């Protein structure tokens, strides 16, 4: 998985490509942690080039969502493909995440 991070004001965007799974999710988790080091930020996850997500990746998103909820910032997931959309639906994440 490749993660491209960009910052615009207090919004941090993570553009992910490849697979967000058991192997790669710790990498994203560290990136998110680092994004919150200085100040509360809004998060955007661009999944346009992400092929696959497993429960490990979903847990990272869940943790990030809880963090922004606690800080009063916002989190958006965009560019979700059909496979990932189906996984979000099955696991109830469509009701938890803001999917653009």
């Amino acid at each position, binding site marked *: 998985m490749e993660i491209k991070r960009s910052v615009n004001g207090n919004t941090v965007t993570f553009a992910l490509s490849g697979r967000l799974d*058991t192997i790669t999710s710790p990498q994203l988790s560290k990136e998110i942690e680092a994004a919150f080091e200085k100040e509360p930020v809004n998060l955007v996850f661009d999944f346009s080039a992400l092929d696959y997500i*497993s429960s490990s990746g979903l847990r990272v998103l869940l943790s990030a969502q809880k963090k922004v909820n606690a800080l009063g910032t916002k989190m958006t997931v965009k560019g979700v493909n059909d496979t990932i959309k189906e996984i979000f639906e099955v696991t109830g994440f469509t009701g938890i995440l803001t999917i653009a």
Partner: protein
Amino acid sequence: MKSDIFQLDGSALLTEQALDKVEKLAIYFGFDDKDVAFSRLLAEEGINALESLLGINKGSLWVETTDKDFEVHLKANAQLSTDQREELIDLSKAKRNTPKKGILGRISRLVDFIATDMVVGENPFIFSNMADEMLSYSAIMASPDMIYWSLQKTKRIEEEKGEGADIERSIIEKFADDIVVSIALKSIEITIKKSKK
């Protein structure tokens, strides 16, 4: 067709190698891109479920296919507690243990019968003339803990796992066409089946 057997030891390297093989076999099997992804996902969540439900990260994985079905098999050596046994059985579509054939399978069915269907008080000895197929066994000694089912215990396990504990289960239940759990005395096997549409 049965694939090679891939060992799992909880390391990212072996897990990824096994999942890559599952993906390649799913492509060879003729699944479309989406079902290839779901096959890999089912294998990954099967591995995750073994760890989250039972705390097991060592075992083996292989794939078996027929004309219609693509099966991911996960096997591990384990002796389960009653709670773990119930959790694992609950993962199966049929909500029961489907033991392998043979004498070990019959013993396993007997243990299942004791663990799930009997209400035993203080007497730890259970005589086995309660089912036709079990007549050949004279007695089984079972600890009270083995046969004691407690909703409190179940609740505690759920709390310990925290939020999102059932993500693997949701994924497996939704995307697999069948899930068969075989619990023997010292080993367990999970078969996750995906069929061609």
